[in-house]
């Protein structure tokens, strides 16, 4: 097994004891799909995946896994890559589940969901996920989970507050905003996926650099001078 695959497996094993909590989080997402517009469930998937992205860091802090990571024969870059891969997998699983649930639920009531609508929301959801995780993970790598968790949740809180305010005020015509995107679904998907991927790659590179600084204690002066 490659080091990257082993690192991904390690992260999966790290959060596995807490699967029950993750299932509860996904269940809450499912409730949103059912009680709200089905397409909103996909956006909830992005938010919840961003929340769940913090779990490996929380477990790492609690159990001094930093020492474990430093002793394992694996580069720190592989560990960072694995952490992002796990987060992305979590998002994809959550989004897939929300999509299936949304489609099934739409057949039972009046809230018909079209494929185009779902596609647009999924694309926007991916960008949203990328921005939330793209901000959050480097913060954790920079200062650790315990010190960074409040700061890491700021984008999620702002997004939730903003979405709530917009929805409540009715000031924004979402249908008018979405219509142009639905007319060009392929282009919309391509642009949003590329944008989201770019954000995640940039975030991963920043996280890698921050993790290296966090992991290696270098005495001032002599080493830098050398």
């Amino acid at each position, binding site marked *: 097994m490659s080091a990257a695959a082993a690192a991904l497996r*390690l992260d999966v*094993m790290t959060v596995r*004891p*807490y699967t029950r909590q993750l299932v509860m989080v996904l269940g809450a997402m499912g409730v949103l799909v059912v009680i709200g517009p089905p397409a909103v469930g996909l956006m909830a998937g992005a938010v919840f995946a961003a929340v769940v992205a913090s779990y490996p860091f929380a477990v790492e802090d609690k159990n001094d896994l930093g020492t474990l990571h430093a002793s394992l024969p694996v580069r720190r870059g592989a560990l960072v890559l694995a952490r992002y891969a796990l987060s992305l997998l979590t998002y994809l699983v959550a989004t897939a589940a929300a999509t299936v649930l949304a489609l099934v639920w739409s057949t039972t009531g009046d809230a018909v969901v079209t494929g185009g609508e779902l596609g647009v929301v999924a694309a926007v959801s991916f960008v949203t996920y990328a921005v939330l995780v793209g901000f959050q993970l480097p913060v954790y790598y*920079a200062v650790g989970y315990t010190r960074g968790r409040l700061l890491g949740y700021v984008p999620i809180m702002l997004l939730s507050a903003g979405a709530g305010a917009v929805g409540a005020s009715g000031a924004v015509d979402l249908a008018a905003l979405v219509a142009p995107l639905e007319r060009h679904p392929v282009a919309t998907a391509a642009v949003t996926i590329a944008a989201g991927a770019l954000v995640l790659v940039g975030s991963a590179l920043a996280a890698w650099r921050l993790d290296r600084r966090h992991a290696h*204690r270098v*005495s*001032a002066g002599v080493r830098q001078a050398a």
Partner: protein
Amino acid sequence: MTGPAATAAPTGTEPLALALRGVTVDLGGFALRDVDLALPTGYVMGLVGPNGAGKTTLIRTLLGMWTASAGTVEVLGHALPAPVALRQEIGIVLDRPALVEDWRLDDVEKALGPFYDRWDPGRFAELLRAFRLDRRARVKELSRGMTMKLQIAIALSHDARLLLLDEPTSGLDPVARDELVGILGDYLVDDARSVLFSTHITADLERIADHLTVLSGGRVVRTGTRDEVLDAYCLVRGDGDELPADGIVALHGARRTAVGVEALVATDDVPLLGPGVLVERPTLDQIVVHLGGTPPPVDPGPPAPVRRRGLLTSRGRS
């Protein structure tokens, strides 16, 4: 007159499992300074010193977690920073295991085994049986002795050539400590294997250590073979007139009471003492007690360079 001094690291041709030469690790609030020690392959080195002497810092430096600002660190022939692959050869045993506490022992193998090229599932299973560890137990349910055994089982299952043990017997009862010493003895039957064992419980080292290093205040007070370290000092007792504080013989960790003085002196200085002074060979414990409280004399050295404040400047010792 001689003072406490570190014996220079061996410079012979025998292969070394560990070699530190002039190593300084500055963590802000604490520093290892001018550390010189060497462990030949196939032997056990005991690293002793009082709490806060720098034992854990030294082990973390060997793991590459801290970087030396001066000197060289060599582990199994590789200068640090070494290739990541070197960690295949190193097993660590910490006083608290760095494992997810909710993992079952099966999960430990699933999580860690894939990282090691020489991981032997059969060996891991055999060791768990030999150590009477239940695969279904969770890490948090294990006693201290059991967690030590688990970490040793992990290290032996990937055929580590070097074991680094940081206070492994701390908190263990005498039976568990005796068991651990026995396990290490079996491990060392293969003379390609070596052990660094840090502890403040010197009784364990008297049974198993071939080499000793005494640390105090981040500095090496004495290093060498066990006999060299034990022969380097004598425990002396006498009255205040026979053992004055400002006499020509340096007294290390002198304890002055109403009935007399007890101190450690360099063996070479014993002939300079008066006839009424009682002289006896110290135990390792007595050496640590008397030397551990008095950091060795140091040169002022060059002024410390200006620290560059980064986002993650370290502020404490580990």
